[in-house]
């Protein structure tokens, strides 16, 4: 996998993970163009894209788009399931995850991603093991977490769509 992007329906980047070394300028350019391309696609369209010289696999969960760029020989369908497994992990960790959880706890989302995918390859596909690893590190986490969760659960105006669970639609 070359990179993974999470962005909202409004085109706001929520998470970015690059597994290939690129300059910031290139990253920005790719992100901008790709977000545009993906957002322009209709719901019933194919989840795979040949974009520039990359293969893009994307999927929409509620208001969030998950988007991966993979290499030519990689399997598109399994990438789709990687995205799904990641959402499952987020869902399990946050408990019915919504976009707000990811916005306010993006570093957690990164930690989970790092346990799941490492250097662009699926590292641990067992859900239980990933969460175990995260929880072990989290045991040290202070109650600052608690505060974040409380805050995140609140519905802020303009954020109504972000707070709907990813798995709901």
């Amino acid at each position, binding site marked *: 996998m070359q990179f993974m992007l999470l962005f909202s329906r409004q085109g706001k980047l929520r998470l970015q993970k690059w597994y290939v070394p690129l300059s910031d300028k290139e990253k920005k350019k790719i992100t901008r163009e790709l977000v545009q391309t993906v957002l322009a696609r209709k719901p019933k369209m*194919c989840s795979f894209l040949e974009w520039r*010289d990359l293969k893009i696999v994307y999927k929409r969960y509620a208001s969030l788009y998950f988007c991966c760029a993979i290499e030519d020989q990689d*399997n*598109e369908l399994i990438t789709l*399931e990687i995205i799904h497994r990641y959402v499952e992990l987020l869902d399990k960790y946050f408990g019915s995850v919504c976009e707000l959880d990811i916005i*306010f706890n*993006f*570093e957690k989302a990164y930690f989970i991603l790092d346990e799941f995918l490492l250097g662009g390859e699926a590292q641990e596909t067992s859900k239980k093991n990933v969460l175990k690893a995260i929880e072990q590190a989290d045991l040290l986490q202070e109650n600052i977490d608690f505060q974040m969760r409380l805050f995140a659960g609140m519905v802020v*105006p*303009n954020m109504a769509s972000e707070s709907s669970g990813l798995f709901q639609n």
Partner: protein
Amino acid sequence: MSDVVEKTLTALPSLLSLDSHPGSAKLSSTSKLGNLIRGITELTSKHEEEKLIQHELLAIKEQVSSPNTTMRQMKELMVRSIYCEMLGYEASFSYIHAIKLAQQGTVLEKRVGYLAVSLFLNESHELLLLLVNTVLKDLQSTNLIEVCMALTVVSQMFPKDMIPAILPLVEEKLNHPKEIIRRKAVLALYKFYLIAPNQVQHIHNKFRKALCDKDPGVMTASLHIYLQMIQENPEAYKDLTPSFVTILKQVVGGKLPMDFNYHTVPAPWLQIQLLRILSLLGKNDQSTSEVMYEVLDESLQRAEMNHNITYAILYECVKCIYTIHPKSDLLEKAAKCIGNFVLSPKINLKYLGLKALTYVVQQDPKLALQHQMTIIECLDHPDLIIKRETLELLFRITNGQNVTVIVEKMLEFLCISEDDHTTIDLVGKVAELAEKYAPDNEWFIETMNTVFSLGGDMMQPDIPNSFLKLLSEGFDSVEEDRKLRLFAVNSYIPLLRGEPGKLPQRFLQVISWVLGEYSHLREDLEPAEVLSLLAKLLDMKNSSSETKSWVLMAMTKLCKGGADASVTQEVSETYSSSLDTVLRQRAHELQYLSQDPELRARVLPRGAKPETLEVDSSLSFLDRFVSEALAAGAAPYKPPHQRQEELDQSKALSLEPYGLSLPISMSSCSITDRQSPTLLSMSSGLSGDSADLSHKGGSSALKLDGIKRVWGREGYLAQREPVEEAAQVEVPSPIQSPGRQGEGDSLHSQTPTQTPTPEPEQEKQQLASSLFVGLASQSSVSLMGKSEPMPQRFRRKAKGQGLGSSFIANEQISSSLISPPSAVDNLLCNNLLDSNNASELAEQTSQLSQSLTTANGTCHAEAELTESDTKGCNPALRRDNCVVAAGPGPHNDPGRLTEVCLDSYLPAELSGLSHSEIAPLCANQSLNLSACHVQKEDSLILVVFIMNSSESAIQQMLLQVDSEELEVSCLCDSPAGEVTSHSVAVGQYSLTVTRPAVHVEVVGTVSYQLPAGTSQSLQFSYKVPLTSFIRPFVVSTEEYGTMWLSFSHDTKQNLTLINDNQEPLTATLNALKKKLQLHVVEVIGMEGIVACRLLQDLPCLMHCRVNAGWLAVWLRSPVPDLPDCLIYHCQRALQSL
């Protein structure tokens, strides 16, 4: 509502300060992040956001640089910086603080620090060097979480040059009791393998261990490495096929823990990885493929559930089945599977079905036939991606009969496509098809015109090039050539009369060239008119200067004086003062040639066939120039790689110690093969004496062949094989002959929509039969056409292939250079290689390493030898040793005893010199053989002691000594003849190394006759470490410098530094000097240069540099293998300290 939130937010800190610290700072910063995020969502314009973030960044910047900021606050600041960066605002000032946080924070803060580092930096960022120490420390931590974090960051990014610093620690983690650590360590090694494969070569056997790990996660992780290695060299891992098959069988059979299931499918990621590996292993290899048939069949059967994940596995299975050596019943099942994909209502599966079809259609064109109606539907799919993939599929099944329909569809798509990548790709494909299968001149020219207009200036430059070549070189029939050219001219004139400003530059260039060359073919066309049309192009604002120069060239060819003179005169005057030198030159050419028709006819003969140019690729005509220049004191030519090396040398701190400079020069070579249109036009007309140009001319001859053949098959030369053609065309396009449509359909009997159909259906069927014509009955023909190496395609891809092959060549070079030390490392690690690994290594490495591998078993014995050898150098020490050694150890008593008594038999002239321990070689009832070697200043003497231990004398004794790596010369008093009872005969041999090896071996035979008359012989072998042949080599730094450049064999390795109280570099060099008799030439700062020679006179130079706790050593010598052997001994010497 927002008020409520506001209140709650401000209340939060007090509500939640359950924390023992009254850490208001922490909480306020948290709510700062909250505020920031919330603030941004409430903003309406981009400008406001920018302002807010800039403000935020300023605040962060101030805080991070404040000395009072605690690590805990720093953590929050980092999170905010990450957020700002994600929004696209640079926060580079925080990078260094992220590293600091990773370094100094507590576990939790560290985690954020590492995360920030991994998000902020990429592996080439210089700040990453600062992380190395932190990683080193954390890898050694007892806290598992810290180790995990370090490994996580290492597997994402790590500076290539620093890998040796942490490699041992990461390797160590492979044996960690926790599987998560082992797994991360494997992935870290995978990362290392990707960025610096030669650095992890020596731990291949550890990868094997990881593959056999009891934890499926670790095993899965190791497959990433294997996939990579097998991709690079499938031959080396064929022996693992049964293992992979067994693993897959177990996975498919559900033998893994339930944890690894994903939607009830057992470990799908693992399955897919294994299938990919198997397809690589089984490719073009029948026997290996046979091993996997069964498990592939099982995988196909098991994957039945209707879920994406099973389809993912099925897709991979199908790909594998079509990649490996074919088996008919598996192919059948796979084909059925593809059918399910294609027919699926799910668009994702349909897409993959099309992809799979594209993949297999070359092997099995009938498969496309089965799904023709689906393909037709996909061709009109609203999703462009599906459409695009369908075109790709059609491209693969194009033949002479369906080319017009397919090209039409492709051009249609090109008109609506907005993506540059797609345009470039499709334009290339259309051009390829047009060149290969064009049914007639008109179609060809028209299609190419569309290609040039649509492709614009983005298309590959070789499309116009090959088009022009095609026109100029022509085909077998002069008449056909004339028609084609005339048609081109005819089609261009109206274009120029229309709105030439809208045409792309490339197209204009093509047009001007064609008009310049061939407009005379059209008799009703006045050159003056063409000239004025061309002159119009010059006046257009958007014409590039390249186009203008093409136009001027065309005008030069056309002008005849007379009426044309005024136009040309004007033009040449305008441009003869142009700032662009090329244009100016062209303008002058135009001016002179238009005034001198005779000269013009000579320079630009009309209708001249491009001649095959004789290429003097050695540029021998320049020899005189070169010798004159040399005589005048010019520096001799150095090839690029040598220059590169010298450059590296001049800035001694090369940060790329393990790279080879070779690939750069090689790839640049192949890039220059690219042809530019300007070059082409020149070689066709003006001058041909530049070596570069004539080279192009040479390559054009090759290309011509290809084009002729292709055209001959289906296009122009159709009349050549009319009978054959007619026989093959059983299903002509129904558009032309509707009467035969039924016949066509009956052949496509599998189409579901066959019965009386409404209008649109019928259209589709017509389209289908025109698209798939030539596939059913003629499949053999089209197959043939496909399996032939397609000349056009081959040529176009040649650049890429050239690059590829040079890359491979380079890989080979580097592996042969690097593998010997890796084998050495294997020895060093004292890992007992399993037999598999040994054989694998043996295949990979050079002969030297073979001998190393086999020597592995006797490693300990050698170690002893080395030890005694070095002690031999130091007489005082040796005495001690003898005393000690003579005491304990009953098992080696006999040897020691012999030594004691044999010592006195040492020839007198050698007795004063240091010699190795006298080692017993072999014995039987009558003879006892021992040997030692004596180091003289410029030679090494082998002394063999033959002791007659029997009661009777032996006769006709003959001692023969020989060696593969050494030159053995017998010194005068070699023993022969009779040896009386209990006496000792001594043989002396002088040894010279001819082929360096880590240990050189002497084999010998003693044949003799017992008094009874029976003749017997006794064989022995004696090993001498290479170090015994090493002598210090005294040179000055300048001499060293010149020698260094002239030596061609080198090796690089990192060695451990000795860290005692004094300076580590000096300490290490001194230790090496003492142990290996090297000469330290000079030590400058953190670098040292050392020299030695191998007897008699083979120098080896060593350059040492202290680098991140390691001694980076670079050895060079004129002798192959010598650097590798020496580095081995250096390692051993340092290890034994």
